[in-house]
């Protein structure tokens, strides 16, 4: 058995069960603490270095689903469906700052700039808001995403990422549009269209499905990866292929697109910190998925079966571990020979 395990490129080494769904996570490299939050609005913490990692409930400052967590200099910055952004001291659990109506709609994602001086949030008001990370002062509010789907229904702005050099912000929405913004001036640099992430079948069900659920810059900043689901053929669960697209965002050209037979939505993706691999997690009709794609070609190199459907993944900076949250709680994965 030991030999077999060693052959596996990735292995689930620990899981901490949780009754609801965790949508958000962040990781403090220094302390080895993984934070997670979701449907019950509480923030939990797991010591990933512990012999038997367990989830500890810390605080409940939001009064609706928590969609995003950012670790920043000893603080956990959280965004939620209650439209609030809340800065909480990780040590004391005290609220350091709170912005009540940070957006006029559910906050879907929050990201920190590489230097830690600013944060950026996106929400269902379809706005991109850049704030001072310390004071919370609103520095820019950017508008460029469509406020409705082509069929005239509510849409959503699901994902945001900041380039490694902090110069560019990428935001992605439900109908498959990506906006690239100059992080200093707020100018809309480019619009990429990836409509394959959006399904609207007027004949079958007259309702939209999908969207770009995650966006991520490559470590060198030249590539932009998008994740979600391809054409959905049935609504009894996410019945559509996992989909990833890689774009050269400077030229505005798609490098590759990959769909897999695994029927699921990829809720989050990230680049492996030390290897040319793209990692994405999600779940759907075929069950949960933790997949590893070749960054250059889009070939699926390995697919692991997580416990439950994943919503968010966080790699350790040294590339040895991956932390995941989702339906069922926290998971700690060991990354080996990918």
């Amino acid at each position, binding site marked *: 058995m030991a030999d077999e395990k060693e052959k596996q490129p990735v292995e689930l080494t620990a899981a901490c069960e949780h009754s609801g*769904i965790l949508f958000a996570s962040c990781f403090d490299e220094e302390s080895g603490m993984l934070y997670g939050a979701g449907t019950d609005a509480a923030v939990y913490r797991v010591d990933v270095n512990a012999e038997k990692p367990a989830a500890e409930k810390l605080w409940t400052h939001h009064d609706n689903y928590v969609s995003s967590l950012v670790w920043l200099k000893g603080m956990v910055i959280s965004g939620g469906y209650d439209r609030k952004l809340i800065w909480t001291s990780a040590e004391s659990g005290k609220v350091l700052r709170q912005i009540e109506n940070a957006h006029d709609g559910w906050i879907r994602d929050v990201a920190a700039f590489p230097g830690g001086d600013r944060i950026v949030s996106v929400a269902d008001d379809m706005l991109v808001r850049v704030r001072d990370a310390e004071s919370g002062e609103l520095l820019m509010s950017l508008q460029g995403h469509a406020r409705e789907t082509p069929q005239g229904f509510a849409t959503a702005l699901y994902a945001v990422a900041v380039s490694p050099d902090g110069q560019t912000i990428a935001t992605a929405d439900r109908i498959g549009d990506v906006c690239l913004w100059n992080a200093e001036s707020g100018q809309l640099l480019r619009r990429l269209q990836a409509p394959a992430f959006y399904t609207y079948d007027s004949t079958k069900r007259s*309702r939209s499905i999908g969207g770009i659920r995650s966006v991520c810059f490559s470590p060198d900043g030249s590539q932009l990866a998008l994740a979600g689901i391809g054409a959905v053929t049935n609504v009894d669960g996410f019945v559509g292929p996992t989909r990833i697209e890689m774009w050269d965002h400077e030229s505005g050209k798609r490098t590759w697109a990959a769909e897999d037979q695994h029927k699921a939505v990829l809720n989050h993706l990230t680049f492996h910190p030390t290897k040319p691999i793209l990692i994405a997690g999600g779940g759907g009709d075929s069950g949960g998925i933790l997949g590893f794609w070749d960054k250059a070609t889009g070939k699926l190199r390995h697919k692991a079966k997580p416990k439950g459907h994943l919503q968010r993944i966080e790699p350790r900076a040294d590339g040895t571990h991956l932390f995941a949250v989702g*339906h069922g709680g926290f998971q700690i994965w060991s990354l080996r020979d990918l």
Partner: protein
Amino acid sequence: MNSPSISTCGSSEHLLYRRSFLQSVLAANATLQIGGLGVAAETPTGEALRRQQKRALFIWLAGGSSQFETWDPKPGRETGGPFRPIQTAVPGYQVCELMPKLAGLMQKIAVVRSLNTVITAHEPAADLISTGRPKEAALDYPEMGVVLAKELASQDSLLPDYVSFFPATEGRRRPATGFLGGRHAPLLLENSMRPGDIDLPSGLSDLEHKEREDLRQRLSSEFGNRRAGSDLVSGYNSAYAKVRGLMRTDHLFDLDREPAATRERYGRTEFGQQCLLARRLLEAGVPMVKVARGFWDSHHDNFESHRELVPDFDNVLSVLLTDLDDRGLLDSTLVIVLSEFGRTPAINKDVGRDHYAAAWSSAFAGCGIQGGAIHGRTDEDGKTVADGEANASDVAATIYTALGIDPRKDYHVGLRPVPLAKEDSKPITTILS
């Protein structure tokens, strides 16, 4: 060219034309079943005549809408989901924040929050809710809309008795005529907002078409008297008369005749435009209209799908009720909002809600309804009915009663008397005016 011989030319164009007419009116795959069932040839009673100004509109949320994200929010509970409740015009009653317009109109709407209809598979559940009774092997009971159309129709109307919109193919149902027979089948509008094949063939004037029809009717009557029996022929004649009526009322299906502002109010969504068309038909005297809005089956991304579907529903239904009221039609039009079931309290791994029939909601407005009445309640998590439990038969009895139709009235299927609503059904009197 006015010679009656035109009508018997036998051209393929004419034959196809007449056949497609009948398909539109009698509905696809429907058969004409008249003989042997006293029900089909029944003439209106005095009571029926009095009812002739009453109408009904079914709004069918196909696939099963979530009661949590509409009529029965559970704020602060794990089952409640992320949407917040808002206060309505009815003191103490809250609905989901996705329905601000209907919240303001709640004094015109009654809600039943305590349905327990047991069945959680789409087809049998839709059968149950649509007919108001469990399936019986020996009784092919018609859909309630078909019964209502028959009960509310004026015999001399040239309009269709029942028009059914069902554009989405998932969950699509064609109203079953059951033992009432194909003659009571609705006009189906599935792929278009306008009935197909009601244009005259090129080169044929309306007068010529009328003369053809006169000849056809005369020949049919002679045929009926000699060989086939008058019931069969009267059925065919009735169908042809409906075709003529439909052609004359083609303008009803033309939404361009509505002011642009009205079309905008209803919204440019398919559901909005169909409800506007439904209002035009009801106003013109069509007694029964059904508008199905698909597809609410939210096994995954329940909150995303309800963010999309409920605001449209909120806008369209609120505009429709106001429009009917402004035109003096709401008091005589029963508006019924139903699905085959609701959604589970538990939120699944796909952030969805599955089928749930143990505690869910429906809404009613207009004719015979006590606006603002909120019947029944569920427990704090929405898992069980805590008070005022009602089943599908009770809903059917309520609908018949609201329209002034005795739910105990019997149809006779062969020798068997069959009441409109199941024998043990009880109208939900708290929502009746």
